[in-house]
């Protein structure tokens, strides 16, 4: 069931048809509805696409490895004819007239669009808990691995009230892939929004180099840092999808020409003796859980024992990066959200006393307080009297942070190895004890400097924690060395053999519940 490439081979060999595969995934989506991973399930669209894919396979004219493969797309990507909400009241009911370039590329390869996944409103958050459609539940909350560990704990509560967060903001995409409802999903990554939920959900979460993949149609958070992200269950799958998505887009002036080989097939590293792994010392922070610290250390040892050179490096401006990120992020947010005024599309309030009153009410009703907070902060930093001291200063610090990475790579390091998150996924009730801003500042600590430097990075699941929950580690590469980065990640993945999530019990429970409901409804009819 697991890998995209394997099921693709099965499709090509006729072992399964696209329609069967589609039905299977649709059924799983229904079964896992309580995860709240999907905002929109595009059942009809997917089935139609499956039908067309089937025709192509019958005629021996399949489009490639993605033909007939169910995928999901985060709901901040524009999809033609399918509601795109960004999990916000502001865009409830907004149906775009065009596809994001990355969506179009997937569709052109015959992928089946299962639906639009849930997120934090406008991708602002690190828990996927702050969207208007409610929070996303981490499938690992219901895994055998986690439940068994929990039973051993006499203080654990029963019931569903202590389910775990997925991380964010691409939590819906992560949950969708993790629960087997699709084989790959698009997320977005501005400060870690693809890598963070990947780590919490036991997935590969890949952030490409800035400029490698088109942002046309990705509803922006921070234009200078956003990238489309890829969530899959293994590295080869991510590489394959990257091969489809990467490339210059005339509609996005920030994409580069001829950056990578297509199609992207990763070689298997025979050995890592020529590799140099860098460990940034500033990333060893007190808040890091001892479990993750230990796993990080063991990973470094693994590389060393297999012949790689492992050295400590310094990224001296690390401690400034959260504040710098905050200034630049909120400033761009304030600007990007200015278009949401209720005039052309999206939510419009009922007040029509004056244009100004209409703007104010529309934006108050349309945005949650996280979004409004960032807009206010951003506008403050952009005021004439503050611009030099905040925005310009932050850009200068950003340059220093980016240079830290350049220096590290220039000193002979091929790839940096760091944690992805401070801890494993926490229960929702615990997560919401702190506000969004606090959480984001904490959770983005290992991931956001990468966005500021525009580098490629990937989170790979390494092992289960003592509680049976996934932990991921992050690899960071040089700009546009995405293929090399993924090659190293693939080697590492093979070494650690991360276990597959066991959700069978959950599925059986669900089927039983569904069966009971059916019987009940039948008896009522009589």
């Amino acid at each position: 069931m697991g890998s995209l490439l394997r099921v693709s081979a099965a499709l090509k060999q006729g072992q399964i048809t696209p329609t069967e595969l589609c039905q299977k995934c649709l059924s799983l989506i229904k079964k896992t509805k309580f995860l709240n991973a999907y905002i929109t399930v595009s059942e009809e669209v997917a089935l139609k696409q499956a039908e067309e894919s089937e025709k192509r396979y019958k005629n021996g004219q399949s489009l490639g490895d993605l033909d007939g493969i169910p995928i999901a797309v985060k709901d901040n990507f524009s999809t033609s004819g399918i509601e795109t909400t960004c999990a916000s009241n502001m865009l409830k009911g907004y149906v775009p007239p065009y596809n994001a370039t990355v969506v179009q590329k997937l569709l052109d390869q015959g992928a089946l669009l299962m639906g639009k996944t849930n997120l934090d409103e406008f991708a602002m958050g690190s828990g996927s808990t702050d969207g208007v459609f409610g929070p996303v539940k981490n499938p690992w909350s219901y895994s055998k691995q986690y439940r068994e560990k929990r039973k051993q704990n006499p203080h654990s509560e029963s019931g569903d009230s202590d389910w775990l967060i997925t991380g964010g903001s691409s939590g819906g995409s992560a949950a969708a892939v993790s629960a087997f409802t699709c084989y790959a999903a698009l997320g977005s990554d501005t400060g870690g929004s693809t890598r963070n939920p990947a780590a919490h959900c036991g997935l590969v979460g890949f952030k490409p180099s800035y400029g490698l993949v088109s942002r046309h149609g990705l509803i922006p958070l921070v234009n200078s840092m956003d990238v489309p992200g890829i969530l899959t269950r293994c590295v080869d799958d991510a590489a394959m999808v990257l091969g489809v998505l990467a490339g210059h887009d005339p509609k996005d002036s920030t994409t580069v020409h001829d950056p990578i080989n297509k199609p992207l097939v990763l070689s298997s590293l025979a050995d890592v003796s020529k590799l140099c792994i860098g460990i940034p010392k500033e990333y060893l922070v007190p808040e890091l859980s001892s479990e993750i610290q230990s796993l990080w250390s063991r990973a470094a040892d693994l590389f060393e024992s297999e012949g790689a050179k492992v050295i400590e490096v310094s990224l001296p401006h690390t401690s400034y990066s959260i504040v710098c990120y905050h200034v630049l992020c909120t400033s761009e947010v304030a600007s990007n959200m200015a278009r949401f005024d209720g005039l052309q599309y999206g939510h419009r309030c009922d007040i029509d006393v004056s244009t100004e009153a209409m703007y104010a009410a529309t934006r108050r009703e349309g945005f949650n307080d996280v979004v409004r907070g960032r807009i206010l902060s951003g506008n403050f930093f952009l005021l004439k009297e503050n611009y030099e001291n905040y925005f310009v200063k932050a850009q200068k610090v950003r340059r220093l942070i980016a240079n830290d990475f350049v220096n590290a790579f220039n000193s002979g390091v091929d790839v940096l190895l760091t944690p992805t998150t401070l801890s494993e996924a926490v229960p929702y009730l615990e997560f919401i004890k702190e506000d969004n801003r606090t959480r984001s500042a904490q959770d983005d600590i290992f991931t956001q400097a990468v966005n500021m430097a525009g580098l490629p990075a990937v989170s790979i699941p390494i092992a289960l924690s003592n509680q049976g929950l996934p932990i991921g580690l992050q690899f960071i590469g040089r700009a546009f060395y995405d293929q090399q980065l993924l090659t190293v990640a693939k080697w590492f993945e093979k070494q650690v053999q991360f276990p597959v999530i066991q959700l069978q019990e959950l599925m059986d429970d669900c089927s039983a519940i569904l069966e009971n409901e059916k019987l009940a409804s039948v008896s009522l009819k009589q």
Partner: protein
Amino acid sequence: MAAPMLRWGCRGRRWALAWVDGGSCHRRGAPTGSTSNRIRGQSSLAQQPLRTAQKPRKGEHKWAAVVGLEIHAQISSNSKLFSGSQVRFSAPPNSLVSFFDASLPGTLPVLNRRCVEAAVMTGLALNCHINKKSLFDRKHYFYADLPAGYQITQQRLPIAVNGSLTYGISAGKERGQVIPKTVRVKQIQLEQDSGKSLHDDLRSQTLVDLNRAGVGLLEVVLEPDLSCGEEAATAVRELQLILQALGTSQANMAEGQLRVDANVSVHHPGEPLGVRTEVKNLNSIRFLAKAIDYEIQRQISELENGGEILNETRSFHEKLGCTVSMRDKEAKQDYRFMPEPNLPPLLLYDATSLPTDADPQQVINIDQIREMLPELPSVTRERLVQQYGMLPEHSFTLLVFEELWKREGKTPGQIVSEKQLELMQDRGALEQFCYSVMKDHPQVVMDVKKGNPRAINKLIGLVRKATLNRADPAMIKEILEKQLSL
């Protein structure tokens, strides 16, 4: 102070004279031509003259006016500055709107090559330094005709800077004398036009048409080297001709392709500059001159009566011929300028810096553009005067029908002689004209001999008419005086 506009509508090149009869600012003497270091957007309150503390005495001190202009010219291109939708005048509302123009979330700007070329051409024609690297910025404000909530412009580093615009003012009573004047061009920047709002007061609603939203504009900023309405009007007229000759803008004010805002202040020469006001909504050259002169007078009156000038925006009321305060725009806007993150820096090349493997479709070569510049109006006028002996003022009013040439294969020289536009060089023939005019108007001759100083002007006028305006008035006067034995 009306300017006789001699304009014939045609598809060919047009030259026109903005020739004001005895412009008042020039009778008073040379304008101060004071330079201003004021940065656009800043209030000049700090530079308010000290004299407002004392009560000024009316009419005692000379006043000088300082006028700066911000001119927006719509670029003549097939599509908009950052999107592929068409540029057309008078299309059905909202029929030329792309997803980007409507600010649909997720859409991105893509720079239009033709618009960049137009900016470079205009910059070269105005003797500007073309910046090989220029940047785009966002200028934020909320308005119904600005869908994204910001305009993409070039605030930090525009495409062209430090140029000059030379125009000709007809001076004094002597006709045919044209004094060249220069106004410095501070910068030229590329920016987006906004949509249009139509206020329907009957139904208390505003209708928004986005056809114009995103059309490319060239903003030409002139330093405050101008000192009155006539100078401003003439300078704008010359700019119009240049833009039309280049083909970079049709610059038709009536169709909104050229819009001018004027910054006006007054001060006593030698003293600090006064508070300035901005005058907007000027949609013809005539109103531009009128509005500026009115505003200058208004400010002088205000100050002479002990009042003070507010740093505000005013609009020109055509029917009343005066400027009125636009109270609702009084609050100072902070535009929160921010670099446009979706557009990398714009890099231009010249012959020396052009990379050898460059794709010609992807680069712009300034030298190549310079080589292809058409003849500019000032050059053409000079050529007509030198080559064909035309009167300078006729070089302004010459109308050349491009179609006429094409159809009949004539050169300008042939047309000039056919239409009898060249200067009458034959003194003998002119003497004949003078003699016959005097013979036909004995009463006027009597008046001259009686000592009436204006009578000779009448004679000169009659001779000019007889010679179809081909004779040099100075020569006519000389001949008449000789013949009258004055």
